[in-house]
């Protein structure tokens, strides 16, 4: 009886939230699934009809070696970014929490600044202001140091690293904030006894801090993981914007799908591609979840 009441109560409390999610997230996905079995495109805009799995059959052609390479790159991108983000954010947040460290508030505030600037603005600023090979600040500095100008975004590896730098710049503020909050929640008395036992900073970090904050930062990390995986703007705007390609070929799955499906204006077809990408993402997140449980 109590169980039933609790269930009712819980559903009631979460209903507004779940209904909103249903309307804005779930229905559109279902609708996309519906479009994916029709032939809605430029030639059948209003009079589209059911075509079954035809789009999926065609869509499989998109998932060729190019797609697999993009998928692999996306995974590397996600892992690299997450590792760097977590490590850098952890180190910086730990340093910010050193006792009697004056001025931490000012530093913390400055480190938050990139968060406040609209993402695409930041990306465009980096692209033209920093990386441009003719006028970019980086090359102007290189020149002053007597070094050869570098075409930062022109080859795959350096472009990939540039994208990573920009993504870190965009994402670190949130991560530092979360880490900082988590660190302050750790019971200070643990450290005192550990220090008495002669534990080094690293030992303390591994044995006390990280296990303590894992639960607190967990959800934020999971959310960031997905955001990183589905990142589109950074790679697209830095290297692949129409009319301003830089020569690097570093597709992620989203930019790859954009170029091989969405530009056709065939909504049935691109919806099918979207659904397949969704399936890939589900596989990915199930894998992550399983790892998390084991780990």
């Amino acid at each position, binding site marked *: 009886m109590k169980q039933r009441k609790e269930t009712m109560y819980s559903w009631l409390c979460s209903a507004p939230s779940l209904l909103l999610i249903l309307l804005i997230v779930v229905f559109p996905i279902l609708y996309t699934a519906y479009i994916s079995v029709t032939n809605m495109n430029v*030639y059948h805009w209003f009079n589209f009809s059911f075509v079954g799995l035809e789009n999926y059959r065609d869509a499989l*052609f998109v998932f060729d070696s190019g797609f697999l390479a993009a998928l692999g790159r996306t995974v590397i991108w996600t892992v690299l970014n997450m590792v760097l983000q977590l490590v850098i954010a952890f180190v910086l947040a730990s340093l910010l929490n050193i006792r009697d460290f004056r001025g931490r508030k000012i530093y913390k505030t400055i480190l938050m600044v990139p968060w406040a600037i609209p993402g695409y603005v930041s990306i465009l600023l980096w692209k033209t202001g920093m990386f441009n090979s003719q*006028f970019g600040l980086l090359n102007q500095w290189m020149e002053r140091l007597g070094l050869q100008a570098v*075409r930062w975004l022109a080859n795959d590896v350096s472009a990939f690293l540039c994208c990573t730098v920009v993504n870190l710049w965009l994402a670190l503020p949130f991560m530092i904030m979360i880490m900082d909050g988590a660190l302050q929640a750790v019971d200070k008395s643990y450290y005192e006894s550990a220090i008495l036992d002669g534990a080094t900073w690293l030992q303390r970090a591994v044995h006390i801090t990280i296990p303590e904050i894992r639960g607190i930062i967990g959800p934020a990390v999971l959310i960031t993981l997905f955001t990183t995986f589905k990142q589109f703007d950074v790679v697209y705007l830095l290297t692949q914007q129409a*009319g301003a*390609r830089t020569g690097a070929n570093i597709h992620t799955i989203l930019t790859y799908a954009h170029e091989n499906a969405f530009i*056709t*204006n065939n909504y049935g*077809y691109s919806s099918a591609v979207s659904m397949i990408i969704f399936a890939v993402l589900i596989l990915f997140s199930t894998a992550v979840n399983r790892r998390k449980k084991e780990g």
Partner: protein
Amino acid sequence: MKRLFAALLSLCLLAALLTACGGPAVDPDGPATITIWHDKEDEVAAVLQEELDQLAPDIQVKLERKDGLTDSLKMVGNDPKAAPDMYFFAHDKVGVFAEMGILAPITDFVDEKTLAGYLPMTIKAATYKGEVYQLPLYFETLLYMYNRLYMSDEEVPATTEELYAYMEQTTQGGHYGFVEQHSTAYYAAGWLHAFGGYILDSEGNPGLDDPNTIRALEYHKKFVSLMPTEGEYATVNTLFREGKAHSTIGGPWLVPTAREAGIDLGIAPMPVVDETGSPIAPYSGVQGVHVLKVAAERKHDAIAKVLEVLTGDSVGTAIAAASGCAPARETCYQDPAVAEDEMVMAMYETAQNAVPMPNVPEMDVMWTVTENLLVEVNMQGADLQTSANAAQQQALDLIKQMQ
């Protein structure tokens, strides 16, 4: 802290309340309001607005700048609540929107006889499957521009080999003899056309592996090697504006900012390719207004009146003065203000060779595919024939996927 929290919360509630009361704005579309979307420079929009204001108070014309205009139209094109009544854009999307069924033919409002007063090229560009969907206002194309500080009028290359010699001679120490957006489809098309190559023919067949296209790309490569690898507009235009590039191929929109930057600007005919004897023949775009089907019946008379104003010569000459582009109406050229405008006439001359952008829907995918090919060939040093074949195949695949 609690107070801050409380204050924040009540502020939020107030905002929520305000929005609820304010609610959706009342639909302002009275019978005599015409909304026109555009993506043009402010100067051009201002001229148009001024001309159309003469219809007030009976008809209020509202020009709205809309970014990502074509993407938005795809989404809202048939939604009377969100779609504009007309839009002002280049002719190359006519095919897409006509196929989608959101455009009304312009001949529903304008007499065929009136259209006879237009340059035939402009009407041809506006025609898709036998129907005219655009009322042309002006057309634009790329121009060969040079900085007189470095390149005297006598030095202006008449042929591409002369241009190449000039580039070899002057490209050094941060200076460039010639720059262009070498790896974008719009700019590279001029070179392809000079060799008889093409991106897409008028039937919608891609020509990326056409032998002439390949010859053009091969020839173009040596010019690219003397230009900065970054071929995007910010780099190219800034080099020219800062006086670091002696000459460039650019659109009319570059002219005012270059003059503002103190460049003594010269405009010359496109260089002729020695091998073929044809000049570089860039794409041209015919800019004009289109009527959306959702508005066509509801506001037929108002739209007809707006279009009537737009067919007047004064609009053409005024826009020509504001944008430096060539008017679409033949009679405009009798106006001395137009006939004596160096830039407008240069545009008019270059347009004689220019190729109107294809207006078939297939063109939508060609921009990306062609650009990929150019990037591979010019920046990554890929084998031309292989890349061209692959690009052609990708183009064919994507076009098939459009169906």
